[in-house]
């Protein structure tokens, strides 16, 4: 299977890339790792006129942690993030980065590409909701930063215009008394997740929930969040009963589509179950326990 013909561009700078995309219009597409885009092109499900290869743009491959302010360049691959020191400070990052697809895809796929695709099944958009990340976008008009919650508008739809690129992801390292976990439920590594749950909990005085972020993936057109569920937990002593209520509340807000991965009811059941597992893992991590995160396979 080969893609339909297109013109290829390899700009030398971000400015040039944005200029090209703007000039070529909406029939052009940026190409970073290509791990989502290329299969679609091969099936000829999409036929862009031009591809602008941004994978070599300077200055977008980096990971930094300056006093708890994390910045990840958009072209950082899942593999590099998963192996980086950041994982020690923010274990939930490792859960996500090391669980995406398989090693080959992780070696090429980028965080920026994943976020920009806004694929409801992609892991990063969901995960970044739990960290209240901010997306830095460069466009014709300049730079803007958009909170992840506003960045993804709908399935496959972001605030990016045709000539705008994600250049960086920013978030703060959660405090020491915080723990997070991200778990995806998949048939196999190279299959998309059936459902995913990300939870970041900050605990004070033992088990009182000071701050919380919850997000569900592959559970609707965009990552599912729930103020109601978070409010149920915030300021409370976390009990299994309370967590179940929160799970119920956020799953209520989800709308998982029925597809080859499962029926909607099944996916809701999986989401509830993953929620409880992720919460347990997050609580343990908040208490300082080092645990490896793994995706669940059916």
């Amino acid at each position, binding site marked *: 299977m080969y893609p339909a*013909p297109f*013109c290829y561009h390899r700009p030398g700078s971000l400015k040039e890339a944005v200029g090209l995309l703007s000039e070529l219009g909406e029939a052009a597409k940026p190409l970073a790792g290509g791990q989502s885009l290329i299969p679609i092109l091969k*099936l000829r499900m999409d036929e862009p006129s031009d591809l602008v290869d941004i994978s070599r743009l300077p200055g977008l491959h980096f990971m930094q942690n300056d006093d708890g302010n994390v910045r990840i360049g958009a072209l950082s691959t899942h593999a590099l993030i998963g192996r980086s020191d950041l994982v020690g400070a923010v274990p939930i990052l490792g859960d996500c980065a090391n669980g995406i697809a398989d*090693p080959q*895809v992780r*070696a090429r796929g980028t965080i920026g590409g994943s976020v920009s695709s806004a694929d409801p099944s992609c892991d990063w958009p969901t995960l970044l909701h739990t960290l209240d990340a901010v997306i830095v976008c460069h466009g014709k008009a300049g730079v803007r930063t958009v909170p992840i919650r506003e960045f993804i508008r709908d399935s496959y739809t972001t605030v990016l215009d045709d000539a705008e690129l994600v250049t960086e992801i920013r978030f703060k390292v959660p405090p020491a008394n915080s723990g997070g976990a991200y778990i995806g439920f998949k048939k196999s590594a*190279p299959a998309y997740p059936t459902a995913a749950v990300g939870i970041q909990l900050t605990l004070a005085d033992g088990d009182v929930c000071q701050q919380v972020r919850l997000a569900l993936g592959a559970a609707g057109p965009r990552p599912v969040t729930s103020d109601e569920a978070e409010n149920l937990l915030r300021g409370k002593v976390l009990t299994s009963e309370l967590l179940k209520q929160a799970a119920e509340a956020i799953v209520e807000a989800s709308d998982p589509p029925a597809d080859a991965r499962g029926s909607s009811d099944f996916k809701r059941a999986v989401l509830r179950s993953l929620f409880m597992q992720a919460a347990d893992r997050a609580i343990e991590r908040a208490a300082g326990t080092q645990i490896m995160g793994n995706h669940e396979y059916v």
Partner: protein
Amino acid sequence: MSEQIQRIPVEITVNGTCYKREVEPRMLLVEFIREEINLTGTHIGCDTSYCGACTVILDGNAVKSCTLFAVQADGGEILTVEGLEKEGELHPLQQAFSTEHGLQCGYCTPGMLMSSLVLLAEKPEPEDKDIRKCLSGNLCRCTGYQNIINAVQTAAKDLREA
């Protein structure tokens, strides 16, 4: 799309030899390897980046060469299955796949070898779960995988003891 077919000059080093070609942008890396330079050990088994039969090593990482355009590998260094043997002698990893019966039809094997090689380069003493993780994107329909795990373990041992 312009009327004229665009051709992009690329220089790609495969198994130590640098190949200079002008390619259509849509040429996949796997097509470059199989058709342009006629190394047919790298196989194609699917169209959605699932099976891993096309796995090669690009700049030290295992990648699926069907999910990469040749132009993206411009300037890169690639190792394919044909680059594993040395002066006609098999590499211990190839040998271990044979002695442990880690292959039957042999179609997925080149991809399995390339993925495993990266693991062994990083982790000389892998646990079974590391091997499973490493080969999670390589489909085999013949072996049931157990012998592949054994083969990688045997190769790891042989490499350590060599």
